[in-house]
């Protein structure tokens, strides 16, 4: 048996936190063989990133390795002095971070950063290093690398920047690359390409990969072996196929089970397809929104040509009462702008939005109708609840504003009722939002949305900030509430699997245009538009495991 590139034994990482000590990593053991791609998955707080930081020796203070060993090709590295440790970084262990927008120094060209890295580790002249940098960039799939090498990071798109980051990590031919959520900040269509580049470069240069991610889909398509982490410990290890198809541990079983997939499972309840247009509760008609760009407040006062960016371009769809319409798109597709217009936050440039027959942008009356009927659930449960308000006041605000309940006892009764509906103990109403986890906060946000007794709720990425197991619970809750109150949902998401699971009809947005629109199964199983096909093809999904 060959010697592993990386061998972690009983690693413990501790964080002193006020007077207590918190164990971020608690006895983790992982082996990675040469050339192998090992995926490390887990939800937030599992300790997976901290394990990666421990290996490369960049744990932030006051965290530290409390016990255990890390060996690189058999040689122990965790107890090396900092200077020797630093010498390993880049040279023998490379690292790729999550956010390509912040990983590169904005004040230097990518060439300067590449050449600096190469010359730090390899005995090359400036010209040789530059040639190697160009080779690396073109190998990473950057077109016209010879010219682009002198560009600054901000002149590259997110996906291209991540390619540069990968090129930088591999520049000195390390034996091991640690990739910490390398594609989580990228759009689906870009994600697939970047993963391919990462895999290709590492295998070309013979580097093993430790791929840290929360996204099972990414791992399923990339990794050879899988390590599942939970609360700082390794729960299960095995080949990707084994773990996804035959998970053994209860935690893994639950985890795999809660991952939605773009393939329709057997025996799932399929929402009835959209009825005819007469039953439409929400009608969006030829919606357009333009933004002026590049003009400051002062210059706006001066005459001159106005440059206009059309974020949403003649989008039309309808949603029948009690059904869910999924709106899918990547970042910049205009889906959030659509949501803002439908809930009344952004005025449309042209077009109509009818809710229950009322044009919500038609003056005061339409505004009143909208307040009564439309609500919204937001993406980030940390930002959607006012941190200075108690849960009771947060949930009571809509009913107080709309005059549904006025006196204190009545309000408290209703709030307690709503909290029970979202499976929270009514006694939490006196707490502040920071005392809750992400999933609990999202439940509070749902309770607030229900507080005004709306018929139509716009859900803008309601679960993308949550862990998969929590996501499943929140989606279940949303379905139950829909059945109970006959709610109509507009579900906006970049996550195709979530949309497939929840919606009866789907629209695909691309650059502000609705490229495709129809019943969910028809779109997923038989996409017509090229963009939809590409999207469905690119999405990493656990059903794609060979």
């Amino acid at each position, binding site marked *: 048996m060959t010697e592993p590139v990386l061998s972690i034994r009983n690693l413990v990482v501790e964080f002193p936190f006020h007077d207590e000590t918190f164990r971020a990593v608690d006895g983790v053991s992982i082996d990675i063989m040469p050339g192998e791609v090992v995926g490390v998955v887990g939800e937030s707080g599992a300790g997976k990133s901290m394990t990666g930081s421990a290996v490369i020796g960049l744990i932030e203070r006051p965290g530290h390795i409390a016990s255990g060993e890390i060996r690189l090709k058999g040689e122990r590295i965790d107890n090396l002095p900092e200077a020797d440790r*630093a010498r*390993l970084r*880049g040279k023998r262990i*490379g*690292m790729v*971070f999550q956010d390509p927008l912040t990983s590169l120094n904005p*004040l230097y060209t990518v060439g300067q950063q590449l050449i600096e*890295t190469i010359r*730090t580790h390899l005995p090359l002249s400036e010209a040789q290093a530059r040639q190697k940098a160009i080779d690396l960039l073109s190998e990473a799939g950057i077109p016209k690398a010879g010219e682009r090498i002198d560009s600054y990071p901000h002149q590259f798109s997110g996906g291209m920047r991540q390619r540069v980051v990968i090129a930088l990590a591999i520049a000195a031919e390390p034996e091991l690359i640690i990739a910490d959520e390398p594609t989580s900040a990228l759009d689906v269509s870009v994600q697939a390409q970047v993963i391919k580049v990462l895999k290709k470069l590492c295998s070309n240069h013979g580097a093993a990969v430790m791929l840290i991610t929360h996204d099972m889909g990414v791992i399923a398509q990339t990794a050879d072996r899988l390590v599942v982490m939970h609360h700082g410990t390794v729960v299960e290890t095995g080949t990707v196929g084994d773990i996804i198809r035959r998970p053994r541990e209860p935690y893994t079983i639950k985890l795999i089970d809660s991952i939605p997939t773009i393939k329709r499972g057997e025996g799932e309840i399929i929402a009835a397809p959209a009825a005819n247009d007469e039953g439409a509760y929400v009608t969006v008609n030829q919606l357009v929104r333009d933004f002026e760009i590049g003009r400051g407040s002062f210059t706006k006062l001066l005459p001159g040509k106005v440059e206009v960016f059309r974020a949403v371009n003649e989008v039309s769809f309808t949603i029948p009462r009690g059904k869910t319409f999924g709106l899918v798109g990547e970042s910049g597709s205009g889906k959030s702008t659509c949501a803002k217009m439908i809930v009344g936050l952004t005025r449309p440039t042209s077009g109509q939005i009818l809710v229950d027959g009322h044009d919500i942008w038609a003056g005061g009356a339409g505004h009143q109708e909208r307040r009564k009927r439309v609500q919204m659930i937001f993406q980030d449960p940390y930002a959607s609840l006012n941190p200075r308000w108690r849960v009771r006041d947060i949930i009571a605000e809509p009913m107080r504003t709309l005059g549904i309940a006025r006196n204190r006892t009545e309000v408290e009764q209703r709030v307690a009722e709503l909290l029970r509906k979202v499976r929270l103990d009514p006694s939490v109403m006196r707490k502040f939002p920071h005392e809750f986890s992400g999933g609990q906060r999202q439940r509070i946000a749902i309770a607030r949305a229900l507080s005004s007794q709306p018929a139509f709720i716009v859900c803008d990425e309601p679960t993308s900030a949550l862990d998969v197991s929590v996501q499943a619970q929140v989606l279940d809750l949303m379905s139950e509430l829909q059945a109970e109150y006959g709610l109509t949902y507009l579900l906006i998401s970049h996550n195709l699997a979530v949309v497939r699971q929840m919606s009866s009809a789907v629209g695909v947005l691309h650059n502000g245009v609705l490229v495709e629109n129809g019943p969910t199964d028809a779109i997923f199983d038989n996409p017509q538009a090229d963009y939809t096909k590409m999207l469905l093809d690119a999405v990493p999904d656990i059903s794609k495991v060979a």
Partner: protein
Amino acid sequence: MLAFIARRLLQSVIVMLVVAFIAFLVFRYVGDPLANLLSQDATMADYEQARERLGLNQPFYIQFFNFVINALQGQFGVSYRLQQPVSQLILERLPATIELAVASSIIALVFGVMLGIYTALRQRAFSTGVIMTLSLIGVSLPTFLIGIGLIYVFAVELKWLPSFGRGDVVQIGWWRTGLLTQSGLRSLILPAITLSLFQLTLIMRLVRAEMLEVMRTDYIRFAKARGLSKRAINFGHALKNTMVPVITITGLQLGSVIAFAIITETVFQWPGVGSLFVNSVAAVDVPVMAAYLVFVALVFVIINLVVDILYFIVDPRLRDGARSGR
């Protein structure tokens, strides 16, 4: 680039016009300009005549226009207190203030940046703790107290340096410099240190804060993960990125040194424009106050412009001309 500078120039002109307007309001409506010009027993007819002569019964906007035209030619009228043309008063005292301001700016900049980098890199060292505590005491010490303290120690007790004035000066054209004589240089030391201390602490704390901020960014972490040397990370990457915000704020701080000199000049009886201004405020000498305001604004606007251009050179993101809004 040209468009950027043109826009900044336009903004500067607007700022100057606004300041000129305020100066004009002060000049025109604070106190009675005529009471200071005419004798006690002037008749109504004398008043009318003077009013006519000074253009005080012309429409408001024409008066403002005339004020601006005069200001552009350096005409701010005659000081009530000293009965001399204001422009001449300011010009006579300007070299003293500029020499003091430049000397203290250099001290503040050199030591401020050095100490800021040192304390950021040696975050946990004992010396850093000492420097940071001293700097907080420095901010809490009023400038005039520092001046008094320095005078007491170095002039009264040790008798090493003079306690007031500029020493001997040499006339070069209209510029009267104290930099060419020994007594002039000796006289400069204490006021320059006094004036620099406050800016020094500010610059030091700013450099430190920005550098610590930069050290926390992902690209510094990524640079560490690529195995770049400590030196390359600290001085190549971190320092350059630190300098972007530091340039702006430091530049503006240095601009304010000129106005800040008011206190130092009073403590050391330094014959500059600042002490002229303080005496004018005490005596409600309106023309001097108005002129001083315009003068300080001009210094501010010029420095601001230089800072903007520097900013432009350092940060490639701005060079692409996407947006310049700060």
